């Protein structure tokens, strides 16, 4: 196998010295991590390597020599470098050489032990692969190929292939702590050799994160305790309405979801793996962006007295809707679309629904003086986030179209009763019966008067079917319209909830952090010189970023398929478009 030497690009122009790193025998790859400069004491170099080996659980060694000089290898330097090979014995021993100011590289790998005649060392072809040490150190490979029990202190990294290279660099952080300007006995060159880089803000944030997390976590626990206490008191005497309302109002669900997310972000446990860290970061950024958008909305709403305008437009709007419904009912009570309705049933149903609308209008007019104040105070909750504002909007729509929901329920129940009655009487018409015990249709002999009444009822029901069916159809369509609007709002909320903004931002600004793999570029090749490649990080495509780092939403997706939905509509069963957590049977 060709010997691959991974060489950091930052060390390409440093002075001569020793190559220090890790040898991966399975792939015949030598990963160079740093260059040790002259003068050095071999004992101290070995001590440093032993320390790093203990910290990183990887086999560190001196891999060879690095020579950066004016022209081709000088005689004395050449002998000196070969002498070093005997002090730090490593098999194979690399000799990398570069002429100053040119791009002429030469490298040799000398095997001492693995050859037929132990006197003559055999040489092998070397392939140079340059890598950017800082980027490889900071990047996470997807999918992670290492077995995730590295923190348990396993000696062997079970990473395969190129993931081993990433693993080596990321675990050797201790080697990068000292740089060229330190007073330590061993002078190293690596990506931090111009000085250890750090940011004051990052350090301050790390130092402050501990106490801040504790504070916010305690505040959140107080808030959630208060919320649950609020609900305990009424539970003593009025269990059903409050929990029912809480489960139906999407604003409460959204609030609960956000509280959970915040408590996860500010929990005092440290993140165990990069995935958890990303999830926490995504949640935090999502909450912050949500609150920022909410505040924007708030400032827009409360400027120019828009709340007042909205409140003033609300009552006439509700009136308009009720008027349209009345017109619709008048139309149904006449001859809708040329169909001939049963006059009596038509009038009964029409008057019943008209009375309901009348009640609804008076209720709205009763509320009208308070609408502006209510809207003003409810609009303040937009400061908690845009998703909260959207969920409140969805709830307001649900409340304002409550009468449509009621009409739908009445129409559906009537229609359902009719369908069941018809099906059972149809069986009677044919002389059969539904056997509840055996869950099947059995033949049955009826008395004459049973047959007579049954047939009479069957005829009545079947002639009244078109009227009921028409009312049912109209109100179902209206209800479906409202459900569609609410569904769109919920879709938007879900989108905002689950978008991993931090990961997307990271992919945009620091693409090397999220790596899907590597890519190679062949650098200019000269005859007789070794092959040189540049290894770059292949960033994760945006679609994979979205898939991998999507935040879990509290899943209010419709559970029905289209065919079961149509079936339910046909039979007149009530449809609940989404089930919240803690299903409530109506």
């Amino acid at each position, binding site marked *: *196998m*060709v010997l*691959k030497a991974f060489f950091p690009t930052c060390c390409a122009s440093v002075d001569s010295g020793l190559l220090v790193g890790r040898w991966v*025998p*399975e*792939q*015949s790859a030598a990963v160079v991590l740093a260059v040790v400069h002259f003068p050095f004491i071999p004992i101290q170099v070995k001590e440093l390597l032993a320390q790093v080996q203990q910290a990183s659980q990887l086999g560190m060694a001196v891999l060879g020599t690095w020579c950066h000089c004016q022209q081709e290898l000088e005689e004395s330097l050449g002998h000196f470098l070969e002498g070093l090979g005997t002090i730090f014995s490593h098999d194979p021993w690399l000799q990398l050489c570069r002429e100053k100011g040119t791009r002429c590289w030469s490298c040799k790998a000398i095997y001492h032990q693995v050859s037929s005649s132990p006197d003559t060392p055999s040489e092998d*072809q070397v*392939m140079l*692969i340059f890598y950017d040490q800082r980027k490889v150190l900071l990047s996470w490979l997807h999918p992670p190929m290492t077995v995730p029990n590295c923190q348990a202190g396993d000696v062997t990294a079970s990473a*395969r*292939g*190129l993931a081993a290279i990433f693993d080596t660099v990321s675990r050797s952080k201790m080697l990068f702590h000292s740089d060229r300007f330190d007073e330590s006995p061993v002078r190293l060159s690596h990506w931090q050799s111009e000085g250890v880089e750090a940011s004051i803000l990052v350090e301050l944030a790390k130092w402050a994160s501990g106490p801040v997390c504790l504070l916010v976590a305690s505040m959140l626990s107080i808030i959630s305790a208060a919320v649950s206490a609020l609900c305990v008191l009424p539970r003593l005497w009025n269990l059903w309405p409050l929990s029912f309302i809480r489960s139906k109002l999407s604003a409460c669900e959204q609030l609960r979801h956000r509280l959970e997310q915040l408590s996860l972000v500010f929990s005092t446990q440290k993140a165990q793996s990069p995935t958890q860290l990303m999830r926490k970061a995504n949640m935090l950024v999502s909450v912050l962006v949500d609150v920022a958008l909410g505040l924007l909305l708030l400032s827009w709403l409360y400027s120019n007295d828009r709340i007042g305008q909205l409140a003033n437009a609300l009552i006439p709007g509700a009136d308009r809707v009720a008027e349209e419904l009345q017109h619709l009912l008048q139309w149904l009570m006449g001859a809708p679309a040329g169909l001939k309705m049963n006059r009596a049933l038509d009038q009964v149903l029409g008057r019943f629904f008209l009375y309901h609308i009348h009640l609804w209008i008076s209720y709205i007019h009763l509320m009208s003086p308070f609408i502006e104040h209510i809207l003003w105070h409810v609009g303040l909750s937009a400061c908690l986030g845009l998703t909260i504002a959207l969920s409140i909007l969805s709830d307001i729509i649900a409340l304002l179209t409550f009468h449509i929901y009621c009409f739908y329920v009445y129409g559906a129940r009537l229609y359902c009763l009719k369908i069941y009655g018809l099906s059972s009487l149809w069986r009677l018409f044919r002389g059969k019966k539904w056997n509840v015990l055996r869950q099947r249709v059995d033949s049955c002999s009826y008395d004459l008067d049973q047959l007579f009444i049954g047939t009479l009822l069957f005829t009545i029901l079947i002639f009244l079917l078109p009227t009921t069916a028409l009312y049912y159809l109209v109100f179902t369509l209206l209800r479906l319209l409202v459900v569609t609007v609410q569904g769109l709002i919920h879709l938007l909320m879900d989108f905002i909830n689950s978008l991993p903004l931090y990961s997307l931002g990271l992919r945009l600004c620091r693409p090397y952090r999220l790596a899907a*793999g*590597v*890519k*190679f570029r*062949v650098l200019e090749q000269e005859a007789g010189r070794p*092959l040189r*490649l540049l290894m770059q990080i*292949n960033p994760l*495509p945006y679609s994979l970023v979205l898939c991998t780092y999507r935040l879990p939403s509290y899943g209010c997706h419709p559970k029905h398929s289209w065919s079961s939905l149509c079936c339910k509509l046909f039979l007149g069963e009530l449809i609940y478009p989404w089930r919240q957590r803690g299903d409530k049977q109506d």
Partner: protein
Amino acid sequence: DECSCRHFAESSPDLYVRPCGDLIACVWLSFQNSMVLSSAIFITLLGLLGYLHFVKIDQETLLIIDSLGIQMTSSYASGKESTTFIEMDKVKDVIINEAIYMQKVIYYLCILLKDPMEPHEVSQVVPVFQSAKPRLDCLIEVYRSCQEILAHQKATPSP
């Protein structure tokens, strides 16, 4: 006994500009309203840019490096490049496959992948040069070079 890498590049046929120009001319003639016209032109431009960035592949490259792996790059008309790298551990073989498509037989080069745990089973087939679709003579050349390198790779197995 030189370590080697081979590099193959295939180009796709050019974009047809005339139909787009005809479309824009039709749109201009049929719409007198400037708002509709400008929005239609804007949408067409956006669609064109999207097509150039996501669909139209200008050049496809195959780079095979001894003992490292095989890399496939597609460069789009807008300059975007998408790269896939397959490590040598996972490569079982490179073959030319035949397929019967409607009334003709087409040849395409593909890479057979294997799971390192099960070296005798083919886990995946990855076709190469899907957009350029070179003819059999080009494919045979590429195939021969790849087989040289793979043979060299198999001759010196990993320790």
